[in-house]
């Protein structure tokens, strides 16, 4: 598969099978993804991994804490909430990414952008290995209890969670707008 084919074939995967994900593979791909980033200050981002059933359960608890305590959550029957919880807890692995907050906006943005670029390379390399992922930054889970649960430090910013697992079937593609329709050319005399 060529690089262009790989980029076009990758999908966000929401349904995983029960095949376990090897932590060593995740670390190896993260290392490779990191090397593909342009040089940024060391320590501009950090990864926390939840792969054991115990860690996954803790993560899902803090992800859903806000929901289950909200007014909406209280309307959801306990059984339904449990099913919801199980769906998340069954996901084999999660990579949580946080970037470092710098002294100014520029450093913040650079660190955040570096983390995002790394995550995209990681998703693509994962796809080459049959791994499906979903980049989750659902606003419902972004609250204090969640940040505390994942160990976010004061000088850090949450970037996203990648839910990871092997999958049976990739969803169909949704058409993209051609770049030509989002394209302008700057002429030197126009400045």
């Amino acid at each position, binding site marked *: 598969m060529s690089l262009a084919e790989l980029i076009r074939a990758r999908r966000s995967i929401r349904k995983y099978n029960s095949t376990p994900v090897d932590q060593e593979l995740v670390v190896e791909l993260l290392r490779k993804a990191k*090397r593909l980033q342009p040089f940024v200050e060391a320590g501009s981002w950090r990864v926390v991994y939840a792969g054991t059933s115990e860690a996954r359960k803790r993560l899902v608890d803090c992800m859903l804490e806000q929901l289950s305590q909200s007014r909406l959550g209280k309307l959801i029957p306990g059984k339904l909430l449990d099913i919801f919880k199980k769906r998340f807890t069954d996901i084999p692995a999660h990579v949580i990414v946080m970037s470092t907050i710098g002294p100014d906006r520029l450093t913040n943005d650079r660190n955040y952008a570096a983390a995002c670029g790394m995550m995209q390379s990681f998703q693509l*390399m994962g796809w080459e290995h049959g791994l499906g992922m979903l980049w989750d930054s659902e606003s419902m889970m972004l609250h204090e209890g969640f940040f505390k649960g994942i160990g976010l430090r004061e000088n850090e910013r949450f970037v996203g969670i990648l839910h990871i697992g092997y999958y049976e079937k990739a969803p169909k593609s949704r058409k993209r707008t051609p770049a030509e329709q989002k394209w302008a050319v700057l002429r030197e005399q126009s400045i």
Partner: protein
Amino acid sequence: MKLSDLEGDIDGPSEFLNRPVSQDLILELLNHAVWAPNDELREPWRFIFADNKNGDIMQGLQEQAPAYLLVLVKEEADQHKREEDFAAACCLIQNFRLLAHEQSLGVRCTLHEWMYDPSRTEMFGVLSNERIAAVLELGYGANQSKGKTEFPETDLHFELL
């Protein structure tokens, strides 16, 4: 070659040759790169291509390069969406960097202080509801690295929950 087998850095060269960059190539690569993940398929990006024939189009703001690509991202009112959209643009840029590397086209991805200053960005056609996600300096290097350069190995910060 598999992406997972790509070794070494894919950074653009420190100096570019005086060789033009084809718009068609950039569009071709972008049409692959737009397959980046983005929330609700908002496709929040837009592109401004600047050919630098006379060598002074971004003087004082950017390093010399045969061409520049401004990657813009729409600024939503909602802060959370704004963050997601910036992240999506970063994924698109990463796709583009990888694809360009394959074509031996050098890309230096830059983010500078002037990009936050509307009085400067509007000169290049950036709208008031947009921001610059990055300016890509494009060109061909004299010795395009194909993964042979040495790079300092830094630690991966990896912890278990």
